């Protein structure tokens, strides 16, 4: 038997940002399908980049940690709330979706 309990896993991260995102209309990319995820970017007060992950694949905390830290290293957004609904996407897909959301933000 696995020691991983059933249900969704919620992971929260917060990093100090260096590039203020300013005000913008919320951005949604991706869909919650098998092996896929949706990413919602919203403006937030303060200078942090707050990330909340809800995932059906439990027990991958260290990998999420690495993927989210990489994301923040690439973009360093400040004053942003990132919300993710994940249905078992691979780390590469997660990184691409996060970058896609930031790209939409810039257009």
């Amino acid at each position, binding site marked *: 038997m696995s020691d991983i309990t059933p249900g969704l896993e919620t992971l929260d991260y917060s990093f100090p940002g260096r590039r203020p995102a300013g005000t913008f209309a919320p951005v*949604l990319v991706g869909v919650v399908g098998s092996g896929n995820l949706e990413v919602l970017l919203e403006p937030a007060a303060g200078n942090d980049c707050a990330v909340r992950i809800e995932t059906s694949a439990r027990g991958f905390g260290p990998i999420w940690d690495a993927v989210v830290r990489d994301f923040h290293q690439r973009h360093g957004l400040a004053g942003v709330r990132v919300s993710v609904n994940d249905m078992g996407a691979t780390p590469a897909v997660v990184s691409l979706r996060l970058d896609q959301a930031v790209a939409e933000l810039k257009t």
Partner: protein
Amino acid sequence: MSAISYAECSARERLALLLDPGSFHEWLPPSERLASPHLAQLGVPSAFDDGVAIGRATLAGRSVFVAAQEGAFMGGGVGEVHGAKLVGLLQRALRDRPAAVLLLAESGGVRLHEANAGLIAVSEVMRALLDLRAAGIPTLVLIGGANGCFGGMGIVARCADRIVMSDTGRLAMSGPEVIEASHGVDEFDARDRALVWRTTGGKHRWLSGDCDLLVEDDVQAFRDAAIAVLSAPDAARPVTLDALEAEHALLAARLAAVPQDTWGRHGEDDAVHYWRGLGIAEPARIPDMDVAAVRGLDPAGRR
């Protein structure tokens, strides 16, 4: 410019490409986080929009209300919130009277995770849709997503004034797997994709008179078709006694096309036999024909 596949687009991509550019104004957008209250309890991730986007927009300059179901999220299944968003849109249309209501349907029907709430929601969608028809507000369903339009949403589609389908779109009540599970693989082999499309696909629906326009799997073709349908003087079809009798006559003609004493004894594929019964000269060629050629057959005599 090459065609953009309607089937391969997400619900939001369809809205962006089908409606007038930049005209879509969403109600209850993802940032409202109006997600399913049930899925998390079952360990299933939610979507911020519960799998459907609703709002107002313009189509060729005309004011329309529109909903688009996301097939990649739970097969477009209708849950409690998803259904409530559809009902709210339709009821608001009854109040505000837009030029038309468009439903970009892609759904396997009721979302089984929240079955009772989903069933009630679908029945409410039907009632709201029929209220719009009674009020003379044109309702148009577009079907071309990879998941097709099945179950309760299949019934909803046939409650609308008009249906536009692509040849890759599918429309039915019970889905292939459901029929196989209940009646056995001898009755219906759900893995036989050619059989699935012969019996639920856009060409079959067009030949049977179940959809009003058959188009290529191309977002622009869907847009053009929607504009054409809504520009026609008979875009709205109020539910009258005459309309119901015509509908019954269509069903009777369909039954007469394949007399019961020939069932299981005609020696050819059921769908091909039925198309032959509709008076099509070389029905076995239908699956290989392109959309334009099939449109030219029009056995239901719509033009």
